[in-house]
């Protein structure tokens, strides 16, 4: 058969050589494409020139507010002088090594947790039982000869990181429980979970922060006051748990029903099936979307500045409003803040893409 077919067809000819325009054709292949390229290059050159002029050529590298006012470029002395305040807020100046150390510790713990080989149930417990208490002791002091520092003087970058990291760590178990409750076959439990999740997801974070800061004190017995930072943290945990629950639910739905049935037929009861069979599979699948959620939450913690907590965005804003620099270094301040947020979010985004690739190759 094959012979007949080849006879019937014209002899195979070598494909015509692809036009060796190479890479350039992608930019200047057609008139329309050329126009797009030229416009893009013009835009890039324009932006680069503007940025370089502002950041370097017209910038002030030493001096004070007066010299900055005279120049049209960036005001670097502002950044140099205010950086420490922006990072740590009103934390006692001599003790600022402590939030610095806490921040580094947090990064180290986080870096270790990012490696897939360390993922286990122990890791979550290690975070809750070791990392968080150590961080708290470092920041609050009062033991081991550390001067006590009230939470009202906590501020800056450590506060931003803690609100989001601690929030998400503690929201994780709650979110998992909520997801299990939503998938439960007990109607009352399911209704309660669905109600909580949908209400929290239907309202903005700011309203929950308002609830925690304005409304909650009304619900407390007289004489009982809860720290404002703690209240905001609890609000963030509750808020995050609803979103985590929805992500985990997706993971649970991805685990084939046969896994539940196999577990039950081995005589395991509900919690054993969940803990040993279903959750390990479900949670692994939801790690990439969880990282995406984390990026969002890291950015959302900026909202605590609206209810009067001194997070990183807030310290930057008060640095900008410092009478010495008022109206001079607005753009500088916001760009520093944007650079910090951008760096961490972009790194997390890159990590999320790494994970997706990792899971695709390791069939996990």
């Amino acid at each position, binding site marked *: 058969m094959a012979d007949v077919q080849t006879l019937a067809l014209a002899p195979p000819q070598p494909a015509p050589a692809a036009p060796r325009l190479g890479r350039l054709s992608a930019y200047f292949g057609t008139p329309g*494409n050329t126009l797009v390229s030229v416009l893009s290059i013009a835009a890039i050159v324009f932006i680069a020139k503007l940025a370089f002029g502002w950041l370097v050529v017209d910038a002030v590298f030493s001096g004070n507010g007066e010299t900055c006012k005279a120049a049209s470029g960036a005001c670097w002395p502002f950044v140099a002088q205010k950086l420490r305040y922006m990072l740590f807020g009103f934390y006692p100046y001599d003790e600022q090594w402590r939030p610095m150390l806490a921040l580094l510790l947090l990064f180290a713990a986080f870096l270790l947790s990012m490696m897939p080989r360390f993922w286990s149930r122990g890791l979550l417990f290690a975070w809750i039982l070791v990392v968080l208490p150590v961080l708290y002791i470092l920041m609050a002091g009062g033991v081991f000869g550390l001067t006590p520092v009230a939470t009202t003087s906590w501020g800056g970058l450590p506060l931003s990181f803690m609100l989001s990291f601690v929030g998400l760590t503690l929201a994780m178990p709650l979110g998992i429980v909520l997801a299990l409750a939503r998938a439960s076959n007990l109607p009352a439990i399911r209704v309660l979970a669905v109600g909580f999740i949908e209400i929290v997801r239907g309202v903005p974070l700011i309203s929950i922060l308002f609830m925690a800061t304005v409304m909650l004190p009304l619900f407390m017995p007289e004489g009982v006051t809860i720290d404002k930072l703690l209240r905001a943290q609890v609000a963030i945990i509750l808020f995050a748990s609803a979103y985590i629950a929805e992500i985990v639910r997706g993971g649970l739905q991805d685990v084939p029903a046969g896994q539940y049935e196999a577990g039950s037929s081995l005589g395991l009861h509900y919690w054993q099936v969940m803990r040993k069979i279903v959750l390990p599979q479900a949670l692994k699948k939801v790690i990439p979307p969880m990282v995406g959620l984390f990026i969002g939450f890291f950015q959302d913690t900026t909202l605590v500045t609206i209810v009067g907590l001194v997070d990183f965005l807030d310290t930057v804003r008060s640095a900008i409003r410092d009478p010495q620099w008022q109206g001079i270094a607005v753009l500088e301040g916001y760009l520093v803040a944007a650079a910090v947020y951008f760096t961490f979010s972009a790194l997390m985004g890159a990590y999320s893409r790494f994970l997706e690739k990792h899971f695709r190759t390791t069939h996990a």
Partner: protein
Amino acid sequence: MAFLHDMRFRAYFYQVVAIGVVILVGWTMFSTASGNLAKQNIATGFDFLSRPAGFVITEAAIAFEATDTVGRAILVGIANTVKVSLLAAIFGTLLGLAVGIARMSRNPLLARLALVYVELLRNVPLLLYLFLWYSLIILILPPVRQALNLLPGVYLSNSGLVVPAALVESGGSALLACLLGGAVAAFAIRRVSMRKRVATGRSNHGGLIATAAFVLPALLLWLAGGVGISWDFPTAGKFRLTGGLHVRPEFVALLFGLALSVSANVAEIVRAGIQAVNKGQWEAAAALGLARGKTMRLVVLPQALRIIIPPLTNTYLTVFKNSSLAIAIGYPDLVMVSNTVMNQTGQAIETIAIFMGVYLALSIAISLLMNWYNAHVALKER
């Protein structure tokens, strides 16, 4: 004690315990709260809604005076929230569609530029952008005394943009009726012409006729002198501009920030949607002789739409909820008005309950609407 191991008993037991705990916590909170409120002399109930508000709202989508009721003030807040989120969703979607398509461009420069745009917007908090846009407007534009007079009657300053306002003095309802009727007629004509076109395969001028049906009645009415419009030109006083339509910097900064954030999300969604369409569709369209632009518009985008709708719903819900960041820069949205009410009356519980309820209801409404649309465009399986 055999019943302890009975699954049915356990199921009931757990549920009763869960409900009991919720009721107990709720009741404890309720009783402490009512005790506290009584002690602090804070009124309860929703009577405050019908009392005069006593504060001014700088920007109201519906008419509002300080003598109006608190309830109307909250209604203004809702209208402002809806206005800014709706506009942000529309502008953001259009911009995001363009950026998302640019992201898929075969020209690497354009694709990279679009990528940088998306990444810059997605990796920096929205609140930071809102502060930034707001302070840039305040900082760069001149104070109102030296307002830039761009066109006759158009002033730009750091207290906003003032343009002449068109006041419809007479025939307003007739105009509205003409526009509405025109829209219905245009919609019907387009449907009929579409059906004819599908049946015969020949193009007709349905679009043109539909546009004419929409515009002509209103135009004729106006030409016939059925509508009286007077222009309210702003006049520059010593300290402020009076008259005209005032677009405030808070609104502009919020709309700009929200629309940009929507556009970045929409761009990513559109890109993912287009990528999910089978490559064979492109090739088949090319084989039929369709140009790339037409392929995108007629073949790929309609299919991508099915993948795009559910995440798009989430984006719209997010922008609606994110509009609550208005309070940070002083745009009187629902949360900010509620906050003012809360400070005046001290009735935090009722006020927060109202605005949370409104957000919840509108969120559900948006979801339902988008789900209906999704079902409308979803693949009809036989």
